């Protein structure tokens, strides 16, 4: 009977206006979200943004204060965790220390009374390439191996949704890169919906098809890694994913598919499609690698001064001060076009209008900056 429930057609995971309050504190605030069946989805945000609470509500470890959660047509909002067809890879794995690796992986199958435990467990262990460790205890495994067992223990149940709570947080950098690729491969092989919670923007961008950036219990923006990076719609997203230059500016006109804005006497153009606000006070944004040390473009700032320079291998990073004392970050690729400037040199900056975006000017310019290294 349990078997049939699992093999049933799966559906999209839909969170409908869910909130979670702890006293006066809103951990998750009126959040709605649809995760398509079979996708690799990431919830990205700094610690305390509500991403783990959201995950725990999907797992059934917390109950939403408001709102509903559906998988396909089934309402799972108040279903006990052991009744949901959702499995979790816990932060720090939470393997059962008293059971062998085999029994750890078999745990969920045995609880549901599934017949062919051995075959299923062997298949799951083969998927994470650790079949030879079946008789060991978790304490005898390395962190990376435990991590993969935690994935196998969850996946063997063929859940409709697999939740991963900062699964790579405890691993060192090299192993983390390796596991990112591994998890992506496993997801493609099994085709289960993965929801991955992380505070590491690079991890989210590497693995997920769709990323939802969360901040203070709400989703700031959702989209592919490219969308979020190239066309952020809030200052938080612009700063949290990679580095960003934001300049306060005023809209002078919106016509002919472009907005003309001014900042401290300089005039810049932004395609209207890339302006995400009706407000006339805006933040003009441009990524550091899109800036060029030249003065021919439509959008350019003359009479700037180099205030810092650091060589980081593939590129050289400059800090450049504008005539009105705003510091902008510029990445220049280390190829034949390299300018090789030094601190104190005069330069001009230019960039293409289509690399520019306009955000609502009422936001904090520094929102989301320096948050990604927390925890």
């Amino acid at each position, binding site marked *: 009977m*349990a078997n049939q429930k699992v093999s049933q057609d799966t559906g999209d995971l839909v969170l409908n206006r869910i909130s979670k309050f702890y006293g006066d504190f809103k951990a998750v605030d009126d959040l709605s979200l649809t995760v398509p069946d079979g996708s690799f989805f990431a919830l990205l945000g700094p610690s305390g943004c509500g991403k783990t609470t959201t995950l725990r509500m999907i797992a059934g*470890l917390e109950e939403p204060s408001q709102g509903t959660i559906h998988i396909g047509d089934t309402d799972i909002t108040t279903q006990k965790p052991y009744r949901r067809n*959702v499995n979790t890879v*816990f932060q720090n794995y*939470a393997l059962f220390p008293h059971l062998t690796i085999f029994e750890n992986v078999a745990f969920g199958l045995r*609880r*549901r009374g599934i017949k062919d435990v051995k075959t299923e467990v062997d298949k799951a262990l083969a998927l994470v390439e650790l079949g030879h460790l079946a008789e060991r205890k978790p304490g005898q495994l390395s962190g990376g191996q435990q991590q993969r067992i935690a994935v196998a223990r969850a996946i063997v149940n063929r859940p409709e949704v697999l939740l991963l709570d900062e699964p790579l947080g405890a691993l060192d950098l090299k192993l983390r890169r390796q596991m990112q690729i591994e998890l992506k491969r496993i997801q493609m092989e099994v085709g289960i919906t993965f929801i991955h919670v992380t505070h590491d923007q690079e991890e989210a961008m590497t693995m997920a098809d769709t990323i939802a950036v969360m901040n203070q219990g709400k989703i700031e923006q959702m989209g592919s890694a490219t969308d979020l990076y190239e066309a952020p719609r809030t200052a938080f997203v612009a700063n949290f994913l990679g580095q960003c230059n934001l300049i306060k500016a005023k809209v002078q006109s919106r016509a002919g598919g472009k907005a003309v804005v001014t900042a401290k006497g300089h005039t810049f153009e932004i395609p209207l499609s890339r302006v995400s606000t009706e407000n006339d006070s805006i933040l003009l944004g441009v990524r550091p690698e899109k800036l060029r040390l030249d003065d021919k473009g439509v959008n350019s700032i003359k009479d700037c001064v180099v205030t810092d320079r650091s060589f980081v291998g593939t590129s050289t990073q400059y800090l450049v001060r504008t005539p009105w004392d705003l510091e902008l970050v510029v990445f220049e690729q280390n190829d034949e076009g390299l300018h090789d400037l030094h601190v104190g040199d005069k330069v001009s900056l230019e960039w293409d209008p289509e690399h520019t975006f306009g955000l609502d000017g009422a936001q904090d310019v520094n929102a989301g900056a320096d948050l990604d290294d927390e925890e």
Partner: protein
Amino acid sequence: MAFLHTATGTSSGPKSGIKSKSWTPYLLLAPGIIWLITFFIFPIISLASTSTMVRPEGAQIGTYVQELRFQNYIDAFQANQEQYVRSFVYAALATILALAIAYPLAYMIAFKSGKYRNILLVLVVAPFFTSFLLRTVAWTQILGDEGPIVSTLKLLPFVDESMRLTSTPFAVVSGLTYNFLPFMTLPLYASLERIDPRTLEASGDLYANAFTTFRKVTVPLSLPGVVAGTLLTFIPAAGDYINAAILGNPNTRMIGNVIESRFFAVVDYPTAAALSFTLMATILILVTLYIRRTKTDELV
């Protein structure tokens, strides 16, 4: 022993080539070793030698000579079989009762007590502030004919007027259970408290309901505490004589009472010594079997 070897092994100077021994580990162990030799090894040897002694014909009471008479053991055991078996039955009952009371208590303190945890732990050990003897005497009041429990029970229709609780096996087992309860609770608490709550969440996530999670995860992970607690309760309870003396009657005598009266009342040292050794040996065997059986050494 292992660290003694390493300590002496690594201290051999490579330059001189002469093996210079470090005496530090021995010096650190000395007070403990001297203490054990004086108050454990020496009395044990003396007890062992007493156990095979014989009182010569016509000699004064309390005078014994060594004749290596091992028949003493058989005689002592045969004469006191009943008390001997009773000791282990009472100790086992008290251990089971203590486990049944202490497990929910320790579970509650470990997982549900929140900010009251430390207060509750202090309350668990609070009885130790009063003497063991006094606490047992207090139980004669609690279980006494005029005490609250008996008079309450007598209100029930099916309870006989002549009912009493003191001087019964019930009183002795209750006293044993009560007196050794902290020894059960503390190790249980220690092992329950060490369980990562996320493993319990993981069990729920993997289709186990609360009861299955308790059976398959909580209990196995708390097994070291169960083993430690049952040993700390069973071993002293089996040799105890205060509870049987104060709360029991002549028909609830335990082996401890026999040994005590042989030593101090009858002045029959060889029988008392032989009984003590038999008790020790039986406990050792039972404990070894128990630990083997529960395979606690494989845990953690």
